[in-house]
């Protein structure tokens, strides 16, 4: 069953086109992340799903129901905002109760004094109170219920915002960069908590972030958005190992993937950075091809040879378990980054010559228009591994 279905959504603000015909099926109960650089339209898409923004064309379905002309409150979606958007004058419990009060009580029944005198109001209020208390307990914020948002830490506010979304049991959770206002340590912890929450509730989560670590660690699937279009939708592992095109490959992975221009030399050989790579003949390269090599796909080698790049070591960055070597190779302005075992540190000196063997089965080839070249289903590596 489909949780959220996005069909041909376009949106522009004035002359600036933000979304160009986005289509996306989000399964029921799935954790889908919209990942992209700022300005790619991911937040706009989320706001359109929520109903806070009206699309220019296309339709949105939530749980099989067209919601295009429904107001946000009728769409069965809840949203967690980047700034949490808690009502500063209300206590935690009042904040969490508000969505229920708005749904279950009429305007008259919500009046301060008169409302309490109307029939049924008291029982509904008790019911709401119980549900808020239950949700708060599940999130571990039941001791904070009488506090104001200003008296809470960032992580606590975050939980209250999640609680306010949770309390009405929506079919879909929409989260707009909910962790970006937290410090690094808390972010890691909340990442786990949100993932756990998703597992426990089993409902659809649509999560917007520009942070690839969040996207990779939390999602069932990641939708990479670039320039108002969905560039690729796949599992985190596939997005990393088999990016659909060059821009996706560049976006995912830190440090960035190494991209080197190469010229076909016939006979399945590519001239690259002063060396030669042996590749599969089957692919049609055209005139030029770009080779993408992840930092961990480069290995330290003693001498030059086939599939081995040679360059001058610029500097070394230690990141604990590994080190990153930045190497200048001929024909590339940016240094090549290689992830090497930390044991090599004593053998590496600035300005020395370094040989790096390419682990061919992990390298990626991109055509001149940025498309990834692959055989068949896209899983098979385009480079042939040569045993030495």
């Amino acid at each position, binding site marked *: 069953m489909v949780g959220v279905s996005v069909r041909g959504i376009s949106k522009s603000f004035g002359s600036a086109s933000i979304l160009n015909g986005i289509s996306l099926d989000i399964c029921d109960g799935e954790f889908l992340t919209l990942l992209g650089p700022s300005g790619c339209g991911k937040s706009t898409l989320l706001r359109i799903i929520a109903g806070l923004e009206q699309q220019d064309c296309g339709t949105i379905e939530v749980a099989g129901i067209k919601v295009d002309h429904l107001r946000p409150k009728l769409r069965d979606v809840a949203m967690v*905002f*980047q700034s949490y958007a808690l009502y500063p004058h209300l206590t935690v419990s009042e904040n969490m109760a*508000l969505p229920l009060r708005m749904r279950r009580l009429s305007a008259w029944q919500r009046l301060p004094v008169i409302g309490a005198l109307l029939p049924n109001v008291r029982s509904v209020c008790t019911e709401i109170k119980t549900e808020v208390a239950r949700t708060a307990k599940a999130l571990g914020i039941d001791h904070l219920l009488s506090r104001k948002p200003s008296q809470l830490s960032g992580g606590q506010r975050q939980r209250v915002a999640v609680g306010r979304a949770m309390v009405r049991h929506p079919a879909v959770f929409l989260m707009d960069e909910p962790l970006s206002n937290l410090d690094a340590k808390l972010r890691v912890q909340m990442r786990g908590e949100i993932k756990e929450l998703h597992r426990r509730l089993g409902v659809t989560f649509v999560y917007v972030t520009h942070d690839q670590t969040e996207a990779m660690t939390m999602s069932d699937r990641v939708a990479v958005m670039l320039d108002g279009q969905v560039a690729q939708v796949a599992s985190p592992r596939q997005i990393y190992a088999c990016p659909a095109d060059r821009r996706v490959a560049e976006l995912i992975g830190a440090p960035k993937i190494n991209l080197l221009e190469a010229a076909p030399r016939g006979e399945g050989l590519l001239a690259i950075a002063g060396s030669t790579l042996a590749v599969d003949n089957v692919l049609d390269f055209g005139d030029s091809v770009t080779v993408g090599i992840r930092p961990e796909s480069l290995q330290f080698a003693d001498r030059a040879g086939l599939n081995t790049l040679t360059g001058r070591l610029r500097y070394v960055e230690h990141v604990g378990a590994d080190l990153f070597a930045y190497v200048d190779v001929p024909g590339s302005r940016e240094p090549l980054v290689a992830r090497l075992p930390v044991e090599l540190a004593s053998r590496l000196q600035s300005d020395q010559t370094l040989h790096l063997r390419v682990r061919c089965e992990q390298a990626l080839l991109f055509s001149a228009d940025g498309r990834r070249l692959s055989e068949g289903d896209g899983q098979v590596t385009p480079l042939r591994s040569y045993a030495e």
Partner: protein
Amino acid sequence: MSQQQVVVDRELWVETGSAEALAGYALVGPALFLILVLFILPAGAVLAIAATDWHLGAKTLSFIGTANFTSLLADRAFRAALFNTAAYVLMVVPSTLVLGLSLALLIESGKSLRAFYRAIHFLPFMTSLAAMAIVWEALLHPTIGLVNQVLAAVGLPTANWLRSETTVLPILAVIGTWQSLGLALVLFLAGLKAIPQELYDAAEIDGADGLLDRLQTVTLPSLAPVSLFVVIVVMLRAFATFDIVQILTKGGPDDASVMLLYALYRESFEYLRTGYGAAIAVIFLVIVIALAAIQTRVVNTRTSRS
């Protein structure tokens, strides 16, 4: 060697310490002098004069203690001034608040000409009320005034607005509101701009998407600090109303529009009873300081709570 060093250091410290203190006093000196001469000494002088029967220009005076204050309590004109001022404040403050907020919401919800509306509503605040009072006088003239002519044209009863005991104070309140409105409007507009859009979005998703619900859930609570500030400023200005009374009514008819500051002016500079006027000034000061103190307390508890 090191001990010597310590001694030298300490001497240096003491020296720079006293020099620093001296420089500090020298720097606050001018401000302290001005505060003393411009605020504290005059206030002390007013207090002292209030305890005498001094007439402006008289060569002698005698100390009469609290006699000025006791006669003030029995003075019909002063009691009228006290009552009128309170009534005027109670009319001006709520109407400025409600009208200012409504106008700000209207302007903010519109898309075009915002700067224009802002400017025309702020104009009365910028112009001299003395000049504007003359315009109002012309408008309110019983026979040739625009107000009465319009009322007569549509068949409504007319009145001699500034010469009738029942209408004079409300009319002054209308003029006072008209003048304070711009300030309240601009402050409310700034307050509205400061409300984060995400709060409105959250309210919309939570189901508070009607006009009244949105006002109650987001707009009004977010504007509470601004509203409090508007109340303080408008209230203090209303308490200190003098110019429109002086120009339009001179406190008449039959003291129906006399207010505290006008009573003070009349006693001190028309009847030349300076001691008596000083006593009114003291009472005025006490009221204003008390109000300011109460409001500061309210602001403080509010800000510490939210």
